[in-house]
């Protein structure tokens, strides 16, 4: 039963991932990629890591929907309903893919697998939280601040109209000069 489930999920992950490059619609490609990620999340859930598995589901659904929006926006054919190709630089890609596969498969087959030391925590979620909030606290804090700085930096670089455009050079305009007024009315 467990083996069958594993085979189904693993095959789904690989086949859906490969199909991403066979379909001619950006929407289908994006959601096939989501299907592949969901199958991987299922595999993670099978290892008993409930929290991590469900967070993968949660993040990937939102992420793929947002990605679909951006992918379609940046397409040469923005409507996206006309056929398109996901292939670019096919020869180089084939070489890289083959080399990666050989390296990974070779590693999996040739390296001596270590014997398991220790035993899984009774509650992996709790163990993960304790690890993140004690031993890995500095890592997570650095990561969080870096990500946040990236978001702020990207928004600052991408925004077409900053506060000086909206509120004047002295930032003293009584009302902001916006085409669409937001709910707080600033």
């Amino acid at each position, binding site marked *: 039963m467990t083996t069958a489930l594993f085979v189904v999920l693993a095959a789904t992950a690989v086949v859906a991932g490969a199909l991403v490059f066979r379909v001619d*619609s950006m929407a*289908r490609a994006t959601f096939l990629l989501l299907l592949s990620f969901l199958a991987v999340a299922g595999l993670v859930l099978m290892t008993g890591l409930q*929290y991590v598995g469900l*967070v993968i589901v949660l993040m990937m659904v939102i992420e793929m929907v947002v990605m679909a*929006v951006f992918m379609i926006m940046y397409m040469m054919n923005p409507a996206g309903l006309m056929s398109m190709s996901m292939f670019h630089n096919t020869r180089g890609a084939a070489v890289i893919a083959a080399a990666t596969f050989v390296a990974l498969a070779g590693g999996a087959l040739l390296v001596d697998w270590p014997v398991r030391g220790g035993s899984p925590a009774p509650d992996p979620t709790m163990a993960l939280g304790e690890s993140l909030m004690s031993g890995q606290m500095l890592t997570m804090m650095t990561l969080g601040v870096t990500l946040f700085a990236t978001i702020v930096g990207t928004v600052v670089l991408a925004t077409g109209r900053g506060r000086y455009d909206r509120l004047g050079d002295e930032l003293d305009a009584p009302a902001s000069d916006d085409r669409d*007024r937001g*709910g707080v009315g600033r």
Partner: protein
Amino acid sequence: MSAVLPLGWAVLLPVLLLAVTWAVVAADVLAAGRAGGRPVPWTVAALTPAREALRLLVGQRRRAVGGDELLRGIGGAVLPLAALLAAVVLPLGLRPVADLGVGIVWFNAMEVFAWAAVWLVGWGSNSTLSLIGGYRFVAQGLAWELPHMFALITAAVGAQSLRVTDVVAAQQGLWFVVIMPVAFVAFLLSVAAMAFWGPFGAPVGRDVAGGAAAELGGVDRLVFVTGRWLLLVAAAAMAVPLFLGGGHGPWLPAWAWVLVKTLAVLAAVVALRHRLPTIRMERWTEFSLVVLTPATIAQALVVTLVALGEGGLR
């Protein structure tokens, strides 16, 4: 008493959800009639869900030229499925169908499938207005998802557990709505927004001729609309274990309290719906990001400090 309901309840859960949905749709028809100045007799309102469902069942399906039928079909089917799957962690009484250790994350992960569903339906119809509806939902989603997650986290921090039954157990004395009112309000707002319903109905708004659902007819529309109502009911029902004490209460058995509280939450949102206009995406986005998100973060901080002050991690 085991922590989980017998397996048969997995079959009963959709039936229960549909029954509550029926009652809510009927109540909504009544409220709409009253708000519109043309009261509907309650007998008519009570039969409206069945009549509409039958009308849609025998109605003609619509196929858009050049549309992506597969994606649209998947999107439509995912909406009710997401609602049903999210509901398996709902304690019906004190026990849910599935008592997952990370039940709150499960609920969150299932309910975000609505993002994919609405966008796919809007996309697959190959119609501009449908697509606008789909994009509107994503824009709104980016605004409500953060306060929603912070509201869920606050309840989990209050109980120091992601297990929904633990959250209920932690409210034996004091309901969480008393100590985390901001999170409760943010959660209720995101319930309506998640079901793109009421003030958050812009994705299927009249100004875009029905938006994401514009091209849906017959059974496709029935599944989509039912899924939307189921999502509203399942998410509103989740407010009961998270903030309103779940099955705890005097005199009545636990299941009756859950039912009464769920119906009360739904009655409140239905009554409010007809008093509020549809809110535009840019207004809601600014309010959500500038007011609601910081407010829910502050709420989470306060609850965390209280939890730490009461003796720290258990």
